């Protein structure tokens, strides 16, 4: 096939030795390690209107951010809702997620919460009903309570951090878990610090 231009071929061109990593940051390739991901909790104040949740979740899907949990609910202002998102990303990804979220027009404000922010999740765990007393005792151990009892099953409610719920789920496993539902993390800053 024809066509072609004049000039020194690629192998005759002096090329710089520098390199960037996959995030576009200049690095020393000899010492650079793969960036580690971390868990970040983002809180977004949004216009309370149809389609916002779909827009936010769609954004995270199409930009391939690793989303760990997402909760949404109204605030005291009827026009505004709060979305709490947990993501697991290397540092530049977290920054990018915040910026992309902020860019959505119905999103009013976005902040990343401090590591010591209050984080809570609620779980309903339905286990086998053959040992209701023992189930009740374990629930108490996790500051939970029994909310439904039938001949076949006992359902308990547990509130706490994600780690606490994980531990509770593992413990209840020995009774035989029939069904489980978890809300995902809701979070607020402590004390006078404002969330958004």
């Amino acid at each position, binding site marked *: *096939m*024809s*066509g*072609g*231009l*004049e*000039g*020194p*071929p*690629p192998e005759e*061109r002096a*090329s*710089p*030795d*520098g*390199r*960037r*990593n*996959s*995030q*576009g*940051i*200049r690095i020393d390739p000899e010492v650079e390690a793969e960036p580690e991901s971390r868990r970040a909790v983002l809180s977004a104040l949004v*216009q309370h209107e*149809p*389609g916002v949740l*779909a*827009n936010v979740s*769609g*954004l995270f899907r*199409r930009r391939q951010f690793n989303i760990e949990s997402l909760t949404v609910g109204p605030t005291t202002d009827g026009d505004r809702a709060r979305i709490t998102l947990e993501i697991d990303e290397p540092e*530049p990804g977290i*920054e*990018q997620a915040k*910026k*992309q979220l*902020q*860019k*959505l*027009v*119905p*999103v*009013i404000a976005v902040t990343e919460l401090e590591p010591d922010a209050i984080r809570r999740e609620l779980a309903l765990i339905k286990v086998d009903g053959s040992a209701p007393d023992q189930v009740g005792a374990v629930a108490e151990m996790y500051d939970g309570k029994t909310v439904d009892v039938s001949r076949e099953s006992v359902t308990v409610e547990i509130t706490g951090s994600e780690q606490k719920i994980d531990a509770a789920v593992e413990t209840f496993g020995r009774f035989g878990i029939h069904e489980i539902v978890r809300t995902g993390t809701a979070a607020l800053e402590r004390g006078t610090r404002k969330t958004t």
Partner: protein
Amino acid sequence: MSERTTKQRETEETTDADAKGGDGTPTTVTSGATSTVRALENAGIETMFGVQGGAIMPVYDALWGSDIDHVMMAHEQGAAHAADAYNVVSGRPGVCLATSGPGATNLVTGIADANMDSDAVVALTGQVPQSMVGSDAFQETDTTGITAPITKNNYFASDADTVGDTVGEAVALAGSGRPGPTLVDLPKDVTNNETDRDPGMPQTPETYTPQEEADADAVETAAHTIEAADRPLLLFGGGVVKADASEEARAFATEYEIPVVTTMPGIGTVPEDHDLCLSWAGMHGTGYANMAINHTDLLIAVGTRFDDRLTGGIETFAPDAEVIHVDIDPAEVSKNIHADYPLIGDAGRVLEQLHDALPEAPDADEWREQCQTWKTEYPMGYATPDDEPLKPQFVVEALDEATSDEAIVTSGVGQHQMWASQYWTFREPRTWVSSHGLGTMGYGLPAAIGARLAADDDEEVVCVDGDGSFLMTVQELSVAVREDLDITVAILNNEYIGMVRQWQDAFFEGRHMAAGYSWIPEFDKLAEAFGARGWRVDDYDEVADAIEAALDYDGPSVIDFHIDPAENVYPMVPSGGANDEFALSEDQL
């Protein structure tokens, strides 16, 4: 043949039923539909492009008495591209109109195209009445759902009283900050319902507050870095065009004598024949632009999103350079390439800020010389051997020669697009109108229609098209004839999806799977059948005459240039390669 058609058009009596009104007064609001039209009038919209259909009929009916011109397109995709090009050329929002269901989905390609290229396009779509939404009604589709990822924002209008405000907001938002497409979905009950509430003047949403001016300290630091740089390089992207900042960009480059490369959408921000200009960089950019990118120690990037077709492999992009990144969209900063000095703000304003903060030009004589050396080392050019068919580069240069500096060039996507952008010497912003980010074949012809209606009468509009691209939206030629638009379509016809053929030769051992047309229409005759003028050109000595005749013809014309089917586009940076690894011929790939 075409003259007869033209005469027929001229002598045809227009009946009252075809005569759209408009008496210079604003539309009186009586319904959601008239409120919609009034909002567009308030926003200064003069022209819109669309296709009729059931659910949008009330809005069309409201246009009957409006001063807004409506161009009836052949296909909704054409309407979106025409609106897009109208925006690129005029800087004013382009508006397109379509019905629900297929009308809306046909717009999708054009909206996605506008989104990728940050073009201010407003799409208004009909929708089934709200009582039927969600019932899978006739011509129902979830338009706001479908277009959410490809719009800056979209709206589902639910109330006749407020629909005008929503439409006004959609127009204002599309054109402000970093421009982009918006869409308003208009259920038929909302447009039909009565209201007498006038929409106010268009306003952006309260929560939308783009930052115009960069942080002063950050500017100061960046300016010091420029002053200290040995090998500074300006990279002007499409954002400079959007911000109408070419003047500031040119002043900055010339005052401090800093070499310039552009991105493809940034073409025309500086005159390509200026000494400091190295033309555009990227996959098929010039060798010298790509060498400069690779060797700069300070890249001053303005209004670019560092697309992969520009950067090649991230690991090897400008590997010795610190990066100053000026952009109005914070989300573009450090998205693909880390910015050492982020400057958020309007391109023109931040360039002025940098100018005010920068007393001395960097000491870069050696670097400028080096850039000039690359220009001579890697010249753009082509041979025209007697025993080979017509070369496309020759055609592009002949067209450039025959037209003014202000001529507007639209293109489809593929080899012809690359030749047009490589061999046409652009001198002004908003004269290169193409589909960059999405790479939409078929963009060129409807874009020429939109461009024609946005351009001044003395600016020629030339669509450099490919045979494959032309076939994708050829129906819009009927619109150009009906509206009597003076456009010249130059098809670089190699009877291939040429860029695919080039890649098949380079990377698929020459297996031309679904790349060649075993039969293709005679485009000159097809043009005549549409009522346009048509020419076919096979030889060098016919080129100039055909171009002259086509440009002279006051209406749409098509020249079918049968070019060398074997010609390839070079230079070429292999996908994911380093910018300085560009191949100059196939054996280097």
